[in-house]
């Protein structure tokens, strides 16, 4: 019975090919848009997640210079109010897992005939743990390298590629940073893009002391631009933030009511905000796309109403020879359902194709998940049933005598 009806639905659709196709087109575009938008949203979320996990967890960044009421000042860090002893003191606080005083600058780097301009980070070995950064090849410089300010360097993937190319193993080679020779002791595992879109692998890490004394000079001995601080856990973060503020204000002799000469930022909170924003964007994209699905559904309802009216006489004949109300209902519902399901399947193909196209053309990540396909399918099926129901019921409720008399 059911298969016979499915056959009839197929038949009826075939009788008006152009009309059926146009109706399906609404569904295809709707489903395609939903799948594609969800893929783009998912891609954005995934890349944010990757950036967040590459950053390290439970992080604060403490910057030299006063915070500005309006947010970050462009010259933050210029005042160099922080120093290595502050970092040691923060390390003593409860709930702090590690501190890495850091100074940064850009420099021209040379190896053989190649040169490259990159960011030099001078820091302590604890930086590697805080950032959860591992070495692919070689080893991390040690605390004794720190004490003796050895000229050793860890190079990021981008730097290694540009200076050495594929053929040469960078470990053990000597590069020149601002004319001083440094020995490469390790190659950093690639981290990819940071939250703000910078290439985190375009960097060289050297011991803090070496950077201070031999690369960037030093106005105030021991001073640093910033510190990376890692809390022991997510829960410890609010208390840790308060403790760092209090400790530094005390150490810097800042009176109550005056501005601090440093600022503490909760990087994890910023990252979470970014993730939240992306999630909202993804939802918004999906929501806008589903409107087209709704429009597709209305298209189905419209065409089914036309079809029911056109086939009034057929409905009368069927009723006369014994079709019950639910047989007629099922017949038209099935027809709407088949249209939306076929449209949906083609729409999914369009959506997947579109997502791949977006990925290839723009380089934006677009990830089609089975979840999004299942969702699109379920929504399309319900749209078909929902919008098919009213016309189908209209057909089922017809008076057989009037239907038979219909010209």
């Amino acid at each position, binding site marked *: *019975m059911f*298969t*016979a*009806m499915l056959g009839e639905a197929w*038949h*009826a659709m075939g*009788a008006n090919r152009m009309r059926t196709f146009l109706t399906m087109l609404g569904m295809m575009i709707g489903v395609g848009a939903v799948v594609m938008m969800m893929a783009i949203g998912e891609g954005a979320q995934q890349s944010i997640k990757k950036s967040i996990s590459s950053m390290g967890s439970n992080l604060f960044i403490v910057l030299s210079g006063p915070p500005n009421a309006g947010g970050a000042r462009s010259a933050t860090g210029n005042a160099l109010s922080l120093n290595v002893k502050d970092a040691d003191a923060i390390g003593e606080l409860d709930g702090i897992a590690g501190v890495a005083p850091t100074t940064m600058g850009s420099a021209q780097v040379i190896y053989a005939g190649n040169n490259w301009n990159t960011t030099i980070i001078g820091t302590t070995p604890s930086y590697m743990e805080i950032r959860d950064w591992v070495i692919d090849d070689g080893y991390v410089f040690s605390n004794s390298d720190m004490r003796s300010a050895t000229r050793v360097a860890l190079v990021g993937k981008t730097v290694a590629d540009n200076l050495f190319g594929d053929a040469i193993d960078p470990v053990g080679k000597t590069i020149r940073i601002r004319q001083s020779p440094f020995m490469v002791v390790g190659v950093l595992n690639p981290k990819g893009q940071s939250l703000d879109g910078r290439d985190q692998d375009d960097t060289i890490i050297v011991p803090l002391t070496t950077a201070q004394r031999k690369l960037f000079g030093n106005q105030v001995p021991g001073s640093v631009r910033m510190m990376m601080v890692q809390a022991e856990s997510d829960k410890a973060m609010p208390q840790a933030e308060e403790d760092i503020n209090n400790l530094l204000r005390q150490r810097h002799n800042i009176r109550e009511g005056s501005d601090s000469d440093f600022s503490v930022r909760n990087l994890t909170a910023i990252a979470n905000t970014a993730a939240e924003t992306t999630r909202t964007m993804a939802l918004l994209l999906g929501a806008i796309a589903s409107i087209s699905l709704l429009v597709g559904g209305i298209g189905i309802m419209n065409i089914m109403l036309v079809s029911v009216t056109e086939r009034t*006489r*057929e409905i*009368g*004949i*069927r*009723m*006369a*020879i*014994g*079709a*019950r*109300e*639910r*047989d007629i209902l099922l017949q038209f519902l099935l027809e709407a359902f088949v249209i939306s399901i076929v449209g949906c399947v083609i729409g999914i193909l369009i959506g997947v194709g579109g997502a791949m196209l977006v990925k290839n053309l723009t380089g934006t990540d677009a990830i089609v998940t089975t979840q999004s396909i299942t969702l699109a399918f379920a929504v399309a099926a319900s749209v078909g049933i929902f919008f098919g129901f009213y016309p189908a019921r209209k057909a089922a409720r017809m008076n*057989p*005598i009037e239907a*038979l008399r219909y010209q």
Partner: protein
Amino acid sequence: MSNVIEVHHIYKDYQTAAGAFPVLKDVNLTIARGDYVAIMGPSGSGKSTFMNILGCLDRPTDGDYLLDGHQVSQLESNALAQLRNKTIGFVFQGFNLLARSSLLDNVALPLVYSGVDKKTRHDKATQVLIKVGLGNYLNSRPSQISGGQQQRVAIARALVNEPRLILADEPTGNLDSKTSEEIMQLFDSLNSEGISIVLVTHETDIAEHAKRQVRFLDGKIVHDSYALSVTAEAS
């Protein structure tokens, strides 16, 4: 139970803007199994309404209708649909075939609604199509055959569920006299096999094929060729 149809004191009113308009007024009719009845009368005499009630397409405003022993005047629409499916075969003036479907599918359609499986549907539909002389056209469309052949297909469709009763509404109205005669011969032979037939017509030569003629006028039966014998039985 030897009567296929028993109609007692049936009334039918249509609601119009001007109030209730009576179409059938106290109609009584009993049709025995195997009978062959022609219902005649001018337009507006109520014969179409009466046929609709007999065919379970409509319900009387008042009165009792027993079809094959079942009280149907109070049944709800699903039960009526099943009665139409199992007990009655319809033949219409305009053939009323589904244009998109093959003759085989047209004939098999009532079986779809009685839940018969595909193989049996196919076999039974083929059998009746052969019986009405269209065994060579199983997969043709209605538009590819003549009017007389289309009416044969409609008769085959009416027969496929082995009904007790065939209701034919002006079955020869769209056909020329020669084809009409052929169709009537088909009805005659079906009746001789024991199927009860009620047909509406306004052509006397068609009505002559039936064993009994009933004439409607103004919502009442004014003539019944059996009336004499019925009256005789009653007294």
